[in-house]
């Protein structure tokens, strides 16, 4: 049994063997993930984008997530070398070419966390934090959330997650889960310009969602993956081409009305979830911000946070 260590510290052969045996265990934030299914594209991806993440090649305990990346059953001889994520419960998963293994891996982990882990309220939202607290950003896909997250990371914030706000049930605190940030299509060059080539994974081209690349989390973010934070602001960002930047403050009730439908498990969790979501909005403000450029969005956030919060 090995103590957890960075992906980069392992031999590729050992990583491959662990993935084959289904003993590869990724530890991140509150969750542990057991993954099986080795492929060269996945190994390439892990040794680059996940280089600083903590893994064990033999699990030391049971894990929250059990993910199998496997060849699709029925069509396995139909379209060659395909892969599909199997999180252990029924979801219609689409087979992907083997070259898209990183996508299958990320997709599988997201499905598992979204639909299976209910010790936290999962809200589909990006979260970053500084010493004053966390900013929760909830947006529809394509709302420019990932770009804004990446931009805030360049301005003194640390990454909690670009995908899930994990809100504690016992206390209304946000918990980090700093997986790599997924970038789609035209956001790839924008973020690449912002953070530099070294931080962006190889582009997976031709996925059902177009081109996808991943922005690697920083070692400093990963080092604080157990440090939770109180929220200081809730944002609903909206990117619209050529629009004049504007912020509209929302009644907390309206913010809750928007956050709950973005949650995968609010209804399931009942009373603790009610306390948590009202606790989250207590004494903080919520804004809808609309903007046409990254610079504008940063200035809006700056202006909002500069007004001293209650």
């Amino acid at each position, binding site marked *: 049994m090995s103590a957890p260590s960075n992906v980069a510290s392992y031999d590729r052969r050992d990583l491959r063997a662990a993935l084959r045996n289904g003993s590869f265990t990724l530890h991140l934030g509150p969750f542990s993930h057991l993954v099986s299914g080795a492929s060269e594209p996945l190994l390439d991806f892990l040794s680059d984008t996940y280089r600083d993440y903590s893994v064990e090649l033999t699990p030391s305990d049971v894990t929250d997530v059990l993910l199998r990346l496997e060849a699709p059953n029925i069509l396995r001889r139909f379209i060659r070398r395909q892969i599909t994520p199997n999180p252990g419960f029924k979801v219609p998963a689409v087979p992907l070419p083997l070259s898209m293994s990183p996508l299958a891996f990320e997709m599988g982990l997201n499905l598992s966390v979204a639909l299976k882990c209910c010790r936290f309220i999962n809200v589909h939202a990006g979260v970053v934090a500084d010493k004053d607290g966390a900013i929760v950003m909830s947006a529809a896909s394509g709302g420019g959330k990932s770009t804004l997250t990446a931009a805030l990371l360049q301005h003194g914030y640390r990454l909690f997650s670009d995908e899930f706000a994990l809100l504690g049930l016992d206390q209304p605190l946000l918990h980090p889960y700093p997986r790599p940030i997924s970038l789609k299509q035209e956001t790839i060059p924008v973020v690449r310009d912002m953070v530099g080539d070294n931080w962006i994974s190889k582009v997976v081209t031709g996925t059902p969602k177009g081109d996808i690349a991943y922005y690697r989390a920083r070692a400093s973010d990963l080092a604080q993956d157990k440090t939770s934070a109180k929220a200081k602001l809730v944002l609903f960002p909206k990117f619209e081409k050529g629009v004049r930047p504007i912020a509209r403050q929302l*009644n*907390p*009730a309206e913010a*809750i*009305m928007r956050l*709950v439908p973005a949650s995968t498990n*609010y*209804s399931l969790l*009942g*009373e603790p979830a*009610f306390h948590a979501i*009202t606790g989250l909005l207590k004494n903080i403000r919520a804004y809808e911000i609309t903007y046409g450029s990254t610079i504008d969005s940063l200035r809006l956030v700056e202006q909002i946070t500069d007004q001293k919060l209650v």
Partner: protein
Amino acid sequence: MAAAPPTTSEKWSSDSHQYLAVEYDDTFLVYFRPSGETHFLNFLSYGMVHAVSSGPLSEEEILARMRTDFSLTAEELPETLVATTLSELDQAGLITALDAGT
């Protein structure tokens, strides 16, 4: 006056231990324990749930109470609005009908 409509024989009640409410500027976020559901209630619907929590009231009594509590005229708060709101609240389980006889 003798022939009251049949609905008025019904009295409505609610149990304040069964729900949690947080007010946001005249809007109430209400968690209802028996159903595990979260509802948004406005001042009227919440006012009605709250009013019948301290003792059963008939529809007529609720109507009168809401008009007084919120200083509304009969025109502003018509009977039908109270009736439909009662039925919404009843469907969600937030209030319960008691037979006048019991």
